[in-house]
């Protein structure tokens, strides 16, 4: 799952640094992800994992780190369907 998240971040997060240089707990907003880039990341993750982020998950902390994104996706995605 984290490899796919990193692919989405590479394509859509517009970070100031290489995603592969970031740890799973590094702050993506501090790494340069804007609120608009966050929208693109959310939409791309929904495509990649065939889920929809409900309003209750629309908070900064959901998208703050790779680990946080992974944790939210794990809750939204049945374990058997998780890619990667």
């Amino acid at each position, binding site marked *: 799952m984290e490899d796919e998240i990193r692919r989405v971040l590479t394509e859509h997060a*517009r970070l100031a640094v290489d995603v592969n240089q970031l740890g799973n707990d590094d702050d993506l907003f501090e790494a340069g992800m804007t*609120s*608009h*880039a966050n929208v*693109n990341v959310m*939409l791309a993750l929904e495509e990649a994992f065939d889920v929809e982020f409900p*309003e*209750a998950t629309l*908070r900064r902390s959901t998208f703050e780190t790779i680990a946080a994104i992974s944790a939210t996706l794990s809750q939204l995605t049945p374990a058997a369907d998780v890619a990667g």
Partner: protein
Amino acid sequence: MDDSLMGAVMYLPEGQPAPHSEAAGAPAPPRVLVGVDLTRVAEVAASIERFGDRYLQRLFTEHELASCHGHPDTVAAGLAARFAAKEATIKVLKPEAARPEWRSMEVHRAPSGACEMRLTDGAARRAAELGITDLAVSLSHEGDLAAAVVVALVDKEVD
């Protein structure tokens, strides 16, 4: 760039008390909250091209989409300004839990061209929690940048 966004300064006649210096016992004047945001037009255009209706329907109301028409560059600029207005509103609302979804913050454009922020659902509930009684919005775009400023009046005692 819209001149209304340039630095505005309020001057008071000499000897006139500032609004916050009400006499003791008088009702406290409304407090003011302000939010500002910048959005790149090219990024909005790229998102429209990449995600299409899923992007448009997730972020914007039918009224907002109908308000932005014409050349694709014009549409992207108008929507970028509206996205900036939603983010500026979020900065005013400072949601403690989940942020209100984007469509609950609508830039309503009157036939005269004047715009106002209309809140529904989660955004309206958060505004009520804060005691916000009125909102004003100003939009602008120039080249690749779109900007919005949102000002809110708060008529509620601070705990």
